[in-house]
């Protein structure tokens, strides 16, 4: 891509041919400006990447002492002064709550996406699509408040109420990514299926969804990663616990890595804060592994 301009030769002094290698002063200034702006843009990129590096570095460095096998297999001691112990109850709570949320929401989300693809042009589909987009921006704390007002006031705190809140946060992500993926299935596949006499539901369930499978799985995993990383709604719906809670909806709350970190951060003792850092490492690993695996699956997608 060239950066200099060519003036018509007639504009120069009569008889003097300018070599293309000699830049006019304006062209030189423009070229310098372009280079300077490139540096500025590079600076912006560095400004965006440095925080990520700092976050990862800090989490790894600070969780060194508390993180280990016992962190993953033991429950936190009752006193924050005491070192040792771990977040087993939190890890279990996060996996349990997010798992139930995923089980509830993934079929619902894919079904909604199927509707958006099959009847995408109708006004109702447009409304649904629009509000799904809007729903991705609903604050998670509001979802927590709403689930509190709707469910927790009757069922009290627990795994299920937490899962409902996480599910509502995950739903729009699943719907929109699944819709994107279903759109990419070539119409030939669908027509071939119809041509063989398959019914609509057979075509959708046995041809279209499997064809878009890797992409849909990717979307679901990204949604799960998002749900696992949420803490704010859980303080209003799962409340927290100090032991491993197996109950589906016990009424006494369910633990979560983020909630344990919040409690650890709010008190002044080093042992508790170190465990919070280790919890951060656990959570960020969980989320990033899910994200990376999701991307790898998407790469294998054939469509």
């Amino acid at each position, binding site marked *: *891509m060239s950066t200099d301009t060519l003036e018509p030769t007639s504009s120069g002094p009569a008889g003097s041919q300018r070599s293309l290698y000699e830049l006019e002063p304006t062209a030189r200034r423009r070229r310098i400006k372009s280079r300077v702006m490139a540096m500025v843009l590079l600076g912006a990129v560095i400004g965006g990447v440095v925080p990520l590096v700092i976050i990862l570095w800090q989490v790894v460095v600070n969780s060194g002492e508390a993180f280990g096998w016992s962190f993953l297999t033991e429950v936190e001691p009752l006193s924050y002064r005491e070192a040792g112990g771990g977040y087993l109850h939190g890890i279990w709570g996060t996996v349990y709550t997010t798992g139930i949320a995923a089980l509830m929401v993934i079929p619902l989300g894919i079904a909604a996406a199927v509707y958006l693809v099959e009847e995408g042009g109708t006004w109702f589909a447009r409304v649904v699509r629009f509000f799904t987009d809007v729903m991705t921006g609903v604050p998670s704390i509001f979802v927590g408040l709403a689930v509190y007002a709707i469910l927790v006031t009757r069922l009290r705190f627990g795994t299920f109420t937490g899962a409902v809140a996480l599910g509502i946060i995950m739903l729009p992500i699943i719907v929109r990514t699944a819709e994107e993926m279903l759109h990419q299935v070539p119409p030939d596949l669908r027509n071939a299926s119809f041509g063989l006499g398959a019914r609509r539901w057979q075509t959708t369930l046995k041809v279209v969804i499997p064809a878009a499978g890797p992409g849909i799985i990717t979307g679901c995993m990204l949604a799960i990663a998002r749900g696992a990383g949420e803490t704010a709604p859980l303080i209003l719906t799962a409340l927290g616990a100090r032991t491993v809670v197996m109950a589906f909806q016990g009424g006494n709350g369910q633990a979560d890595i983020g909630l344990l970190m919040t409690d650890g951060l709010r008190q002044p003792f080093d042992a508790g804060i170190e465990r919070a850092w280790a919890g951060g490492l656990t959570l960020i690993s969980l989320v990033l592994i899910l994200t990376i695996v999701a991307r790898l699956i998407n790469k294998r997608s054939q469509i």
Partner: protein
Amino acid sequence: MTTPTLDKGPGGLRASGKGRLADPLFRWAVVVAATSVLVILAVMMGRTTVSAWPIFQAEGVWGFLTGREWSTGQSRSEVTGSYGALPFIYGTVVISVLAVVIAVPLALGIALFTNELAPWWLRKPLVYAIDTLAMVPSIVIAIVAVFFFIPVVTDPMGRFIADSPLGALPLLSGPAQRASYWSAGLVLSIMILPIITAVTRETFANTPPDERNAAYAMGATRWEVMRWVIIPRGFPGMVGGTMLGIGRALGETIVVAFTVGSSQRMGTSLFFGGDAVTAVIFNTFATASPEAIWGLLALGVTLFVMTMLVNVLARLIVMRAGRVSGDAAV
């Protein structure tokens, strides 16, 4: 599907009524699933408004939004305290605006660099890096903010600015506090950077290649192409992405709760501690009396309406800017 003739004889076209209802049932299931999105939104909105109604009734909607005093009562059945949300709304808006002011130029730079300047092998890693930033859970950013970003970055910066001649401005006057609008806004800008970048990058990538190539053929420099072709083309997308960023900033909870300072003072300076709608819900919920929970629900409704307005506007702008995909997960 039409079945023209039902020839019962051997060898003819056979069709049975078995499974005739499967397709309509399937369609209904799918429609119900799609409707559930709308139902969930409506139920959430309706239920919280109903639950918060006593507060709106006692204070009046306008009184609630503009009141400056928030002192919760202990009652179980009636409103005895005073509920004014203005300090929180003010804090939320100030923090979000600050975050956007910092994040938008960065996002613009990152989007232009990845699309136009980066060598091909760097493009994907850059996109992944920024998307990864979006996936970092907010509690993790909060802990890094409390122990690193605030003491090492935002607090010294704030002190420096407050002590410099700029400190004479009411907006930037000292003394700079550690947990303040400034700290919260700066940390928040990291969190909204990915979504603004993603939307901006996608609209920039939608610039017709002919226009770019034409500009290059006319001898424009790289910067001139970006400035006069790509940015004007992608401007609506940038605006939409920014609005989505504001929406995220308004609703971000944990990072704000740990960095904003939890003070109802509502000072003019960015360096004073304040409070935000989300932060007060998060920080006071665990110890709230039934009456105070109505107050928090009323705050939640206010927050929901604010983000709804911003998001609806943003989505309309992004839709007009052309189909942009892939920001759902960001």
